[in-house]
């Protein structure tokens, strides 16, 4: 057998040139799963509203490990302190079977079909057949017990793997790590106000799912939503209708480690502005919609908040794109809201699960508006379909060059500072500065 190869080393100290091997090295990817997805990070697994009643569950994943998100029974006296949401790994403690095969449902308990080991909703092993053996009669006609588990077998030691769970405003996060800091601290004070703005005090409604399999490294999706440079160039709808382009008032926010980010902007009227549209082939000066209901934007009161950076003044973004490392993107683009969950599948592929939601107090017109604007997003979206495509072509480019290529992320310099504009790749540099530290490369 060959000796394990040492990981590639990143030349230099910066994070503005990302080596292609960061996206293509299978051994490095296994380490990413251990250090990032199964390490000291909180991973999004779903929304509380997806499992409204006791026993409701749905499958999700943390890295490549499939987990079950389930609502447990909670004694009345604990209801003030226990949200009842549990996340357990979908792998039987007996022989390793991925026992739960229904993507969602309602259960009283979980039973592995192979040998009927039965678990409570919280993952505790409730019982198993023949634990105390089977009563029989021996050759001398005496009663005896055949088999059974050893006398020291303890049910308590053989439950499902339980993840730590944190619920924030209806978003459910889980981690295999015992050490990671509490969720709000993990997200940081720079990012929290932008989560509060969308979610705080609101009951969500589930509108549905879209799923796509993108043949690219998982980090490319995080980069895509930390990259304010491309939307006004790749996406005709954004530049033409003024939904996202470089002449808008914008802000790039990061947590202090550079791993999470928020891209904040306020739309303008679109149309020609030589500074940002001249020579931009995706800008279509004469484009008008045949049916304007596709972009029937109605401002919502919650868009306006006290500016976290300038207390006492108001700020009214029309779009906030939040990346929570390592696997969640939260989108508010005008009236369309979704979470997007990155589920890696090897170094060159990931599944991207979109969960669109609204608010319980939306009227019918607002729900219809959110659903119409969903035409912009997802695997077929007027805007987002091309993101998946360019991610695939990025991965293709990395693969053909091999070990010594690197990307160039130096728009706006090489530093990792927050900005009050969008003509920068600072958020990508911030993420890779953090990634280098975690991965030790």
């Amino acid at each position, binding site marked *: 057998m060959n000796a394990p190869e040492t990981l590639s080393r990143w030349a230099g100290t910066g994070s503005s040139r990302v080596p292609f091997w960061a996206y293509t090295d299978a051994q490095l990817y296994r380490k990413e799963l251990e250090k990032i997805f199964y390490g000291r990070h909180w991973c999004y697994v779903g929304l509380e509203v997806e499992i409204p009643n006791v026993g409701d569950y749905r499958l999700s994943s943390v890295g490549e490990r499939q987990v079950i998100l389930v609502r447990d029974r909670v004694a009345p006296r604990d209801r003030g302190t226990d949200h009842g949401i549990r996340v357990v790994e979908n792998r039987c403690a007996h022989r390793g079977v991925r026992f739960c095969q229904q993507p969602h449902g309602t259960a009283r308990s979980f039973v592995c079909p192979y040998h009927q080991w039965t678990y409570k909703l919280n993952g505790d092993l409730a019982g198993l057949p023949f634990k105390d053996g089977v009563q029989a009669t021996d050759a001398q006609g005496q009663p005896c017990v055949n088999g059974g588990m050893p006398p020291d077998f303890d049910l308590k030691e053989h439950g499902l793997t339980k993840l730590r769970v944190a619920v924030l405003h209806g978003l459910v996060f889980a981690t295999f790590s015992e050490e990671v800091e509490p969720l709000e601290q993990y997200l940081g004070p720079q990012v929290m106000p932008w989560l509060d703005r969308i979610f705080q005090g609101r009951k969500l409604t589930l509108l549905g799912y879209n799923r796509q*399999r993108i043949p690219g490294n998982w980090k490319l999706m995080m980069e895509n939503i930390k990259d304010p440079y491309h939307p006004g160039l790749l996406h005709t709808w954004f530049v033409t209708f003024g939904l996202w382009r470089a002449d808008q008032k914008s802000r790039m926010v990061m947590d202090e480690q550079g791993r999470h980010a928020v891209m904040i902007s306020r739309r303008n009227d679109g149309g020609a502005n030589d500074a940002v549209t001249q020579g931009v082939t995706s800008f279509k000066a004469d484009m008008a919609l045949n049916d304007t209901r596709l972009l029937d934007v109605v401002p919502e009161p919650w868009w306006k908040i006290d500016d976290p950076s300038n207390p006492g003044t108001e700020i009214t973004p029309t779009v906030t794109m939040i990346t929570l490392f390592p696997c969640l993107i939260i989108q508010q683009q005008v009236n369309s809201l979704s979470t997007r969950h990155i589920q890696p599948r090897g170094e060159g592929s990931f599944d991207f699960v979109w969960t669109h939601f609204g608010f319980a107090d939306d009227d019918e017109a607002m729900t219809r508006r959110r659903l119409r604007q969903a035409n912009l997003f997802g695997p077929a979206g007027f805007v987002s379909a091309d993101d998946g495509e360019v991610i695939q072509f990025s991965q293709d480019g990395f693969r053909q060059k091999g070990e010594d290529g690197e990307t160039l992320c130096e728009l706006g310099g090489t530093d990792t500072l927050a900005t009050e504009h969008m003509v920068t790749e600072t958020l990508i540099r911030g993420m890779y500065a953090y990634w280098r530290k975690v991965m030790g490369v």
Partner: protein
Amino acid sequence: MSAARTPEGAGPVDERLLLQLEIDQLNAAYAAALDERRFDDWPLFFLEEGRYTVQARENFDRKLPLALIALESRGMMRDRVYGITQTIYHGPYYTRHLLSPAQVLGQEGERIRSQAHYAVFRTKPGDASEVYNVGRYIDEIVRTPAGLKLASRTCVYDSEMVLNSLIYPI
């Protein structure tokens, strides 16, 4: 034989066969327009206020309203055609639709409910063909002076994962 009726009383056999043939021809023409990339013709298969929806089976079965594509007029369909031909950047590909015979589910006046099963294959330049999207059309069809038109077509797809992107109509 022409007087024979179905147990449901849906009409004489020859009328039913004729109707099925008409719907099959509508579907064949629809598929040919897409596979031959005559996208400008695609909205013309619908009524002016016709609806076109592509929805994951998961959402359809659970009555979740989100769709992958949800268009509510020929105007929106034209906007989609402009998108797929002018604005959505994507790797080029061909489609090939294989459709089952239509199954007429019911008829109320001029409005016919039917469904047909489809498989769409995708072929990218220089690559092998792959199964791209599989599902069924659930249709409401109306007889007009210009022939049968779709009042609504819902493409409910079984495929749990979209293979990266879905650009052209199904």
